[in-house]
């Protein structure tokens, strides 16, 4: 019998390994052991998911498909199958609900979720490790997929932990060890630190999470703005955000930071087009439609500007979404102002209405 542990909170981050491609490899033995990517069929298609075999060739999510095919000519490209992913995700969430109440399961996307299992581990019947193992086992035997799980006292540390030993990993970070666990990791491991911030921190001599945690806060804020202090708190493993399963529907977003700040509208629209393709492919893979399209711009001084356009009926049409994104860009971008980062996001996500057999009586 597992010994209970006494963590202030027990939070699991469960991430299905190479979800999209694993679903196809599970269902079609011919795809096992070969490099597989899920991507749409358009000219501008980007990779939405790559199997571990494909990743060995450098194929990654968000990579344009034609580049992926150059890196790995034998890549097997599969069209996304939204209903199938959704069904797998539904089964996985059923498993989650055996371990905690629905409002304590926060789905981030089809293949990723946070679970607060504190109640399960605190009252003498189980512990974090056993719950994590059972979830992994049940996902494997019932859904046929492997998951990597991080267990910690916060969402942040759990997420970082699940990412450190993929695939099929299980990483526990007991209370009090968070800072030690995070310290040796490269700063890129902290969610929210993208390539550009990473460069900036590198130039300040900050290479590991430990460096960031110990850095003088004032200088960090001078260099990165208030966000710098937020990043530092994260680097110290301080995250009190609750697992919230009642959160409104997630958003799908993509963003890109420019090498050099861009002020030309045409260039911004070009970037917007690529980002829109990416989010729409993801939208279709998840078999949902969006009501709201937003564009966010980060200015050279790190200020964020964001504008959104809402539609009365949800859509997954790429042209419709691009037109909306362009008008959001027009609302948010003053001609010739320099932009450091551009992002596009979709929210108000809904599943398309299923066919409905009408009835004769009532």
């Amino acid at each position, binding site marked *: 019998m597992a010994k209970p542990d006494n963590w202030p909170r027990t939070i699991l981050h469960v991430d299905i390994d190479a979800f999209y491609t694993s679903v196809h490899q599970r269902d079609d033995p011919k795809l096992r052991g070969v490099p597989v990517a899920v991507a749409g069929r358009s000219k501008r298609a980007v990779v939405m998911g790559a199997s571990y075999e494909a990743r060995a060739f450098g194929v990654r999510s968000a990579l344009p498909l034609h580049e992926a095919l150059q890196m790995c000519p034998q890549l097997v490209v599969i069209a996304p*199958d939204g*209903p*199938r992913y959704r069904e797998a995700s539904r089964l996985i969430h059923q498993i989650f609900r055996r371990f905690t109440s629905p409002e304590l399961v926060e789905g981030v996307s089809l293949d990723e979720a946070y679970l607060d299992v504190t109640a399960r581990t605190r009252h003498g019947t189980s512990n974090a490790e056993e719950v994590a193992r059972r979830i992994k086992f049940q996902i494997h035997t019932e859904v046929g997929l492997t998951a990597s799980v991080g267990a910690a006292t916060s969402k942040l540390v759990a997420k970082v932990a699940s990412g450190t030993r993929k695939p099929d990993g299980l990483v526990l970070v007991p209370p009090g060890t968070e800072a030690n666990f995070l310290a040796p990791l490269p700063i890129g491991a902290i969610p929210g630190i993208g390539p550009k911030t990473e460069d900036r921190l590198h130039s300040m001599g900050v290479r590991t999470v430990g460096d960031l945690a110990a850095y003088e806060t004032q200088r960090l804020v001078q260099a990165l703005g208030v966000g710098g202090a937020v990043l530092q708190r994260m680097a110290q493993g301080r995250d009190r955000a609750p697992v919230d399963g009642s959160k409104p529907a997630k958003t799908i977003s993509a963003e890109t930071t420019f090498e050099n700040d861009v002020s030309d509208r045409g260039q911004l629209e070009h970037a917007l087009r690529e980002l829109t393709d990416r989010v729409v492919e993801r939208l279709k893979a998840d078999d949902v439609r969006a009501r709201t399209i937003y564009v966010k711009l980060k200015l050279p001084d790190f200020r964020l500007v964001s504008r959104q356009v809402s539609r009365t009926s949800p859509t997954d049409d790429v042209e419709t979404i691009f037109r909306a994104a362009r008008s959001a860009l027009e609302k948010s971008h003053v001609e010739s102002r320099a932009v450091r980062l551009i992002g596009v996001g979709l929210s108000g996500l809904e599943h*398309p209405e*299923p*066919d*409905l*057999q*009408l009835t*004769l009586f009532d």
Partner: protein
Amino acid sequence: MKAKAIEAQMKVTCRPAVLGQALQVVSRAISSRTTLPILNNILIETTSEGLALTATNLEIGIRKIVAAEVAMEGSTTAPARLLTDFVGTLPDQDLEITLDGATQSLNLRCARFDTHIKCIEAEEFPPGPRPDEGDRLEVALDDLVTAVEQTQMAASTDEARPVLTGVLVQVQAGGLTLAATDGHRLAVSKLSAAGAGDLEASLIVPARALAELSRVLKGEPGRVDVIISKARNQIFFKAGSSELTSRLIDGKYPNYAQVIPSKSSTKVKVSTAELTQTVRAVSLFARDSANVIRVKAQAGSLTLSATTNEVGDSKAEMAADVDGSDIQIAFNARYVLDALGVIGENEVELMFDGPLSPGMLRPPGKEHYLYVIMPVRVAMS
């Protein structure tokens, strides 16, 4: 009957083929799971016409009399499954059946076989209601079988609403109207009846019972006696030496007449065989949830199509007489096929009144049959 059974040393001779066939039909009334073990047995009784076989699950009862030479009268009950299976294997030579009344051992001698089956006394068998009194009417066997076939498949199999698992049988104005619905489609078939006089009655007959009717009455002469018990809780169908009895379902049947469309904005006339073949082919691509085929009618043609994401799609256009406005509507393909399979005419008329209103199928120019289907509201895409 009691005294007779105890003393009897029943002795009859018959042909295994005839007996075997009757045993198979009668066995249809036996439930696979029953809490009363005696109901796994078939009641065997000698009568003046031959050997009577009766089985029941207390809801449905089936009785058939097979030609037999009765040398000694008697009765018993034999395990249905064993007797049916065994008789089914016998060569087509005289089968001599003898009961030892004291031991209830049934001896079957046929060709090289000498077999004993342990039986249970006939008195143990629950006495079924007999069709001797009640309101009687008479219908043509073929008409009845057709009307049942045209309606019973539309009944529900969902026990949550028991009345819908039955077929409504209405007796009025010298005729019978059969109606069945599962809430998604409705089938109504009419036939004439003799001797109904001014009798009016509304009965809900389990569809399961009616499904056995054609099998039970097969091979009998052309008329069927329909007898409704005085207490209005049983119905009997009797033709020649075959009989089906059924308990009636208690409850209030929905007012189906109100959902029969009274107008239509589009009328289509098309070959039944061609439509059947087309729906069957296209619906292979309608594997998704509601088994949806899309129907498009425009001047001179009817187009059917279906799509399933992972499978593919199919479209077929056929020549049709189309009268009225163009329409696009979607249905569960199975509901359409169910009707086409029983309509029994070379041509079928389809009537629509908008994509969200019930559609209707009927034989052109005839009033005896109609079939209403609710459409599927398809997701926009």
